């Protein structure tokens, strides 16, 4: 296996990072400048806030699925748990005391982390599709549990009134978020929410970046690529698998808590099966085992609707094509699912490494060692590479995997 170029923090990269952080810091005010006012407005600030929320949530999923190889279709359940814990704390306080936002969100994150850590235990024996099913069960069960008032068991009516805490089917209405008095007049509500979300988002992205390049990150990747090999090298499988779940729970909890704060409304239907699956789709689309990929995944989650609208806009509404192509509003409406799915399928066939993979290909950079590992992403290019490898192997060699695979790795990315 080729040793890829290590990503050193060159001067250029640091400069780029600083510029990006500056952009993030002033974004909510940009629309007052003449040039930016053309396409930025408070609605974009709202979208940017949403983007920040999804970034936090998807980073957790990326750590769990992209780096540790544990497929989780139930990540939305952890987000919902975090959201409700934060919401209840903000609404009802704790033991009579008012709970400030940051404490509520942090508590939500820690609680969800602990819960996810424990949930990792039954997941230890499962992998691949079986783990996917188990996590799917989680997200299917949770909305119902959040609405639960009572249920029958062995002929008895048990009043486990969870709905009293969660607001039940009608959801939980929270207090409106407001900037502190000292900043009154300098920030609007929306700008304040943007900072409330972006600061944790930046911090947690940095955290994730650090984790992936640390001992824990190496253990995660080892577990993903080869459990037997990892154990041989002294990695405590159980502990690290559960830690992976716990970390994803931390991110999900913080993201969910901030979600509840920014929306001031929480419904059991806000995070359900389809959302959970879409989150995984977003992570894969962005690029597995890649922090930049997660950024793109979060962009996808925040701008899905606009992307689909843009794609429908590409269909020419020429008169003679009427009847063969969707042309009217009504047609676009009814075919919306197709406009969403077909580009997705086409994209993933030709770019299985996601957007981050595409960037890597275009940039000519070799994949980092944790991306080039046994992360099996087969795409047409990869298949072509394997065919070529077998051809080169000839009739004498049986296993083309043992062949030098430099060009195949590049093709796979």
């Amino acid at each position, binding site marked *: 296996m080729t040793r890829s170029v290590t990503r050193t923090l060159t001067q250029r990269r640091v400069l780029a990072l600083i510029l990006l952080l500056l952009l993030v810091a002033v974004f909510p005010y940009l629309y007052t400048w003449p040039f930016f006012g053309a396409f930025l407005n408070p609605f974009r600030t709202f979208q940017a806030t949403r983007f920040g929320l999804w970034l936090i949530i998807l980073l957790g999923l990326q750590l769990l699925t992209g780096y540790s190889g544990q497929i989780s279709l139930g990540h939305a359940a952890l987000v919902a748990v975090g959201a409700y814990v934060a919401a209840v704390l903000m609404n009802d306080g704790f033991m009579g005391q008012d709970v400030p936002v940051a404490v509520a969100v942090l508590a939500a994150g820690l609680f969800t982390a602990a819960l996810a850590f424990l949930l990792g235990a039954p997941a230890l024996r499962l992998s691949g599709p079986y783990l996917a099913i188990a996590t799917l069960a989680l997200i299917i069960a949770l909305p119902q549990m959040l609405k639960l008032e009572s249920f029958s068991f062995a002929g008895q009516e048990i009043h486990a009134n969870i709905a009293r805490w969660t607001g039940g089917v009608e959801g939980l209405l929270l207090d409106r978020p407001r900037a502190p008095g000292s900043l009154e007049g300098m920030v609007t509500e929306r700008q304040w929410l943007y900072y409330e979300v972006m600061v944790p988002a930046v911090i947690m992205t940095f955290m994730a970046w650090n984790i992936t390049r640390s001992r824990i990150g190496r253990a995660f990747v080892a577990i993903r690529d080869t459990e037997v090999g990892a154990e041989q090298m002294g990695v405590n499988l159980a502990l690290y698998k559960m830690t992976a779940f716990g970390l994803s729970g931390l991110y999900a909890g913080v993201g969910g808590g901030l979600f509840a704060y920014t929306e001031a409304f929480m419904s059991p239907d806000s995070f359900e099966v389809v959302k959970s699956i879409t989150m995984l789709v977003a992570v894969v689309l962005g690029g597995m085992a890649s922090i930049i990929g997660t950024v793109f995944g979060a962009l996808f989650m925040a701008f899905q*609707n606009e992307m689909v609208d843009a794609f429908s806009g590409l269909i020419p509404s020429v008169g003679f094509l009427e009847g063969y192509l969707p042309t009217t509003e009504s047609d676009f409406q009814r075919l919306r699912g197709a406009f969403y799915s077909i580009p997705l399928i086409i994209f993933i066939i030709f770019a299985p490494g996601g957007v981050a993979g595409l960037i890597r290909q275009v940039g000519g950079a070799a994949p980092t060692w944790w991306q080039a590992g046994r992360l099996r992403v087969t795409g047409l290019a990869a298949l072509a590479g394997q065919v070529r490898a077998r051809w080169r192997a000839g009739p004498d060699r049986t296993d083309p995997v043992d062949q030098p695979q430099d060009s195949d790795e590049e093709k796979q990315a």
Partner: protein
Amino acid sequence: MLAQLRRGFLLAAVVLAGLLILSCGEEEEAGETPAAGSPAVTEPAGAETPVAEEVPGVTDTEILLGAHFPLSQSPASAYAVIADGQRAYWDYINETEGGVYGRKIKFIVGDDHYNPADTVEVVRKLVEQDKVFAIVGGLGDPCQLAVIDYLEEEGVPDLFLGGGVVKFTDPVVKTRIGMTLDYGTEVDAMADYIKENYSGKRMGILYQSDTAGTTGMEMMTEALKDSDIEIVSRQGYDFVEADLTPHTQRLKNDNPDFVDLMANPGAAGSVIKVAREVLDWDVPFILSAVSANEFTIALAGAANAEGAVSATSGKMISEVDDAGVQRHIEIMKQYAPNVGPSSLTEYGMNIAELTVQALKNAGPNLTRESLVEGAEAIRDYCCLTCAVPINLSPTDHRPSETVWFDRVENGKWVRFGEPISYESTPGKVIACKGAGEPVYADEEE
């Protein structure tokens, strides 16, 4: 190792500092309005303030209306054809009457996947990016719950919304008007019917574990509390569950004399079919108003559904002899040829007709206030497929307050008895016939 520890501490310090800064954020008590005169989003100095006469979404030639509907990624996307019904009628008015006071109606639909978090995004986009004049026909209880406060605060009319949660229309909010039968009125009507016809009997309830079903079940329990009807079984189900055989079996085990299905057409049809065909159970069924349509009969099987009772306020699409239904089918065929007419498109067209009525009442000087007042001025109005009249007033934001019970006979819903009014704004019309013709109280049927 030491370097790592130092880095770790530094990181922890940064995180803590960040959190301390953030924890300064306060919260406002819910209900406290921002200072008078300051809009929810303050304009920074130097930005243009909007001209007083400029009404968002209204020009001399166009009115822009918006709504959120589940178009994809949810089983609820079957209800998206309601938007087609709305648009078809507005296209018809645009073409035949040139719009209302010379302004043509344009309709944008945002896809919220029936997810309240997405509804917030969609509605904000409609209001802030597309600058719609009003939200008309927004669908979904949980979805609307997420955006009613925002719309109220921004002063955007939320008209004829598709949801029956009681708090949508009580207390009355100036810019918000309901459409469907609200759950309180529906349960009152059903409870009265049950007390009259099933006195002393045992009742089973199947309810969808969402806002509509659970609230309905609780209200029904409350309404029948002091009566001689005993509720012996309550079975909840989640709307993603496809197979309701276990629920039906559990209902049967509790041996009720009749069953109330507070469920959507899919579930209701499934339960009826299973009960009749698989479990050989001939218990009478009462259905929620939402299932009083052809879908339930189709899913249950006409023979199985025979005798099922429900309440409605509109004419069935199967009443092809009725002039109003014929008109509806004509308009759909001409302006939405790819969408089959159904009770859902009828409902959509009702919304569209009410909107046009409100716009006409509002007069040529169109603002959001005049639109809402125009809607409140609707009295004794019979839409094309209404079976009962619609009355609104400044204190009555519920168009549907009269019900007419109907029963499945030979595979079709047939109304029986007299319309029952829970109307808080009494009018002179008691029923509707033909293509929007009112039937007055002193007329003979």
